[in-house]
């Protein structure tokens, strides 16, 4: 290995309630393809955002070409030759390739841009990389992969020395991936360093020189790709300690099947999904972000449509076309995104808590204030919601209390099947254990719970069974006695 292009040393970053990075280290050589690997929430994107100067670190140092640098804004990062290619493309579809490449350039000729001139310069770059496009083509005429390549070329045109690619292949076909890899190899030859983030192990083995594994905000280690194995990487990604401030106190439920899903499919999102949920059980759904878990649950709840497959509740086939149908049958969903999908933030706590059960206390224009109050009181108590009054605006509550309000809204509906999508994301430890206790209670009362979660500890401890999803399918289902972090991670990342 030649020169070191980038060193990030002991990077530390705290967000309110989360210590995202504790002591993250990353060292990338000149002309190296360096992969960054880690589970959900390991800190990859935070580390990259610090490199791109989108976040400021709370501690640690960054060296570029062995010089200590301070990246105070996106412009600084660009000046040091750092380019980040995000998952969402930032191109202007109605402009030409050439215009897109040079869009950020300061125009010289008193603001006049010569099309001919930039097209010629763009063509030179394209030819250099053996990309057979005409620089005058409109970006909208290109495929997604080709657009991604333009994005990369734009980075190259800034004379970038370090290019970060965040899951660049997530929406690409096999051929397109090959095309992307060709470009990466050419960049490498030109001395450009590439930081490559992906969950797809086979790709990492094909393209990367070294791999750094992050877990819980810390660098676990860096290995040379040629000398490592999938098993070693999975072992590095898995945390060992399960802290036990919460436990699953109830049994595993009965053998009676409540919800049964058969062959559910939505093209391009999930396929061949079959599973059963038993009475009083907590069924964990885990997998990587983007594996299709949320989309599957939203299909069962009627927010999204599905192409084929059947859903049975207590043996009766359901025809779910809208959330209303699922709710009437007794299936409710506490969504992952509390602020966007869970709450009317601008309205009051009481308004939100009772939104699903207005029928219970409003007839015509008669509002039974007593009944309304008693519903609110009951669930405020059950969930331990802390609020100065029911007239408090929901946005003013803490994350934990907001989540409890969403839960209250759905528990008031007395569900048979409760789907919880990331039920404890972004809430403090205290509220977390209260929600776990509530889940135990609910299953004791016979409610069946599907818990979608990316948090390994939560899945391992709270689930009675676990389904692992990988690229739109259920890749494995584990009974409690077979739970193992290694296996779960392996089935989340491996394409079998």
């Amino acid at each position, binding site marked *: 290995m030649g020169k070191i292009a980038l060193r990030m040393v002991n990077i530390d970053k705290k967000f309110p309630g989360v210590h995202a990075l504790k002591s993250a280290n990353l060292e990338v050589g000149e002309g190296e393809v360096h992969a960054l690997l880690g589970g959900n929430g390991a800190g990859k994107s935070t580390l990259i955002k610090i490199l791109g100067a989108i976040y400021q670190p709370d501690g640690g140092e960054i060296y570029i070409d062995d010089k200590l640098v301070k990246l105070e804004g996106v412009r600084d990062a660009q000046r040091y030759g750092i380019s980040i290619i995000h998952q969402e493309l930032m191109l202007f579809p109605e402009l030409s390739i050439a215009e897109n490449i040079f869009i950020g350039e300061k125009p010289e000729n008193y603001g006049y841009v010569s099309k001919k001139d930039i097209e010629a310069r763009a063509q030179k770059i394209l030819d250099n990389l053996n990309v057979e496009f005409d620089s005058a083509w409109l970006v909208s005429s290109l495929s997604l992969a080709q657009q991604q390549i333009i994005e990369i070329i734009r980075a190259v045109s800034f004379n970038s020395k370090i290019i970060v690619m965040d899951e660049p292949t997530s929406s690409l076909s096999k051929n397109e991936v090959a095309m992307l890899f060709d470009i990466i190899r050419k960049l490498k030859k030109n001395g450009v360093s590439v930081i490559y983030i992906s969950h797809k192990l086979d790709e990492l083995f094909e393209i990367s020189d070294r791999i750094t594994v992050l877990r819980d905000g810390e660098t676990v280690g860096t290995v040379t790709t040629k000398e490592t194995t999938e098993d070693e990487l999975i072992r590095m990604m898995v945390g060992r300690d399960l802290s036990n401030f919460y436990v699953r106190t109830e049994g595993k439920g009965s053998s009676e099947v409540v919800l049964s899903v058969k062959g559910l499919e939505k093209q391009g999102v999930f396929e061949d999904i079959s599973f059963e949920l038993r009475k009083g059980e907590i069924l964990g759904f885990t997998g990587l972000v983007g594996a299709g878990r949320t989309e599957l649950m939203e299909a069962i709840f009627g*927010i999204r449509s599905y192409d084929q497959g059947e859903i049975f509740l207590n043996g009766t086939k359901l025809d779910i076309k*809208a*959330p*209303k149908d*699922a*709710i009437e049958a007794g299936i409710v*969903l506490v*969504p992952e995104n509390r602020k*966007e*999908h*869970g*709450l*009317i*933030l*601008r*309205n009051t706590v009481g*308004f939100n808590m009772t*939104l*699903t059960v*207005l*029928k219970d206390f*409003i007839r*015509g*224009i*008669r*509002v039974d204030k007593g009944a309304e109050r008693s519903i609110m009181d009951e669930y405020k108590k059950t969930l331990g919601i802390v609020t*100065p*009054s029911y*007239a*408090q*605006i929901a946005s*003013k509550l803490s994350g934990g209390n907001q989540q409890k309000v969403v839960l209250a*809204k759905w528990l008031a509906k007395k569900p048979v099947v409760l789907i919880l999508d990331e039920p404890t994301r972004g809430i403090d430890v205290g509220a977390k254990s209260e929600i776990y206790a509530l889940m135990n209670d609910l299953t004791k009362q016979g409610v069946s719970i599907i818990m979608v979660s990316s948090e390994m500890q939560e899945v391992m401890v709270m689930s009675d069974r676990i389904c692992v999803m990988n690229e739109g399918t259920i890749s494995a289902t584990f009974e409690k006695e077979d739970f193992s972090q290694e296996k779960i991670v392996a089935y989340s990342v491996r394409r079998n």
Partner: protein
Amino acid sequence: MATDLLNSRKNHGLLGFFKKNIAIVTGLIVLCVVLSFASPYFLTRHNIMTLLRQISTNAVLTLGMMMCIMIGGIDLSMASVVALSGTLTAVLISRLGMSIPMAIILGLASGAVCGLFSGLFIAYVKVPAFIATMAVMNVARGAAYLATNANPVRITLDAFNNLGIGFVAGVPLPVIYTIVLVILVALFLNKTRMGRYIYAVGGNFEAARYSGINVKAVQITVHVLSGFLAAFAGIVLAARMYSGQPAVATGWELDAVAASVLGGISLFGGTGSVASAMIGVLIIGVLQNGLNLLNVNSFWQLIVKGIVILIAVSFDMIRSRKADK
């Protein structure tokens, strides 16, 4: 936190209303005080009745408009629907000899159908409310001209015209209708399930959908009501003018928008009350009445109205930005 607690407990009832709408309530009072000194005529009983009758149309339109704005949309077709329902009712009575109740029912129905039309396109085709209601605005206006050959249609039946010009206990009938409608819409928004769904859809469309609310039905209901209210205003106006006039009410939808935003109906949706919107109506009405009394020429009136709206909305934006922090 302690102040939050105080505020949230006190925001009920009349006191809470005044606290929440302190700026516009003060504005209205100041305006009235100034005018009562500037013009000895302002506080006379006759002028107050004239003022109330003048604003009754805008009040009814604002009731519909505020609901559309509350769900994050707008209804630009209201003024055209005023013209359509008025001319249709006039044609049915004067040219086709239809009975008055039947003609009124069909006139009201024409407005509801216009609203249904916009609502269906907004809910199912996802056409932005601005565009859908603008299209209906053109269609309704065109239909009004076609139905009348672009000429006013006179109504000579006193039984009908009295609905617009009559008095009960010295109060003009249109004012009484308006008071009844204001109460009905306030009850609807505060006391019914649909009313709460309107606040939910306006506050967060996606969260409303995830709560199992039939958001399409909410959008359609609001637009049908808006069309119905516009048609009601149009029929009363026709009675007041003894005729259905196809060119009437041009631009009035914007007065309803102005009254709504002056009355604190947030353009972001999900908040607002009938009472505060009515204060918006009063401010615009009093301003117009006062400027008339002071003989300010009508072109200047437009300029004053524009400036007042801009100031009021800026005030609201600054306040809500502070509240978000």
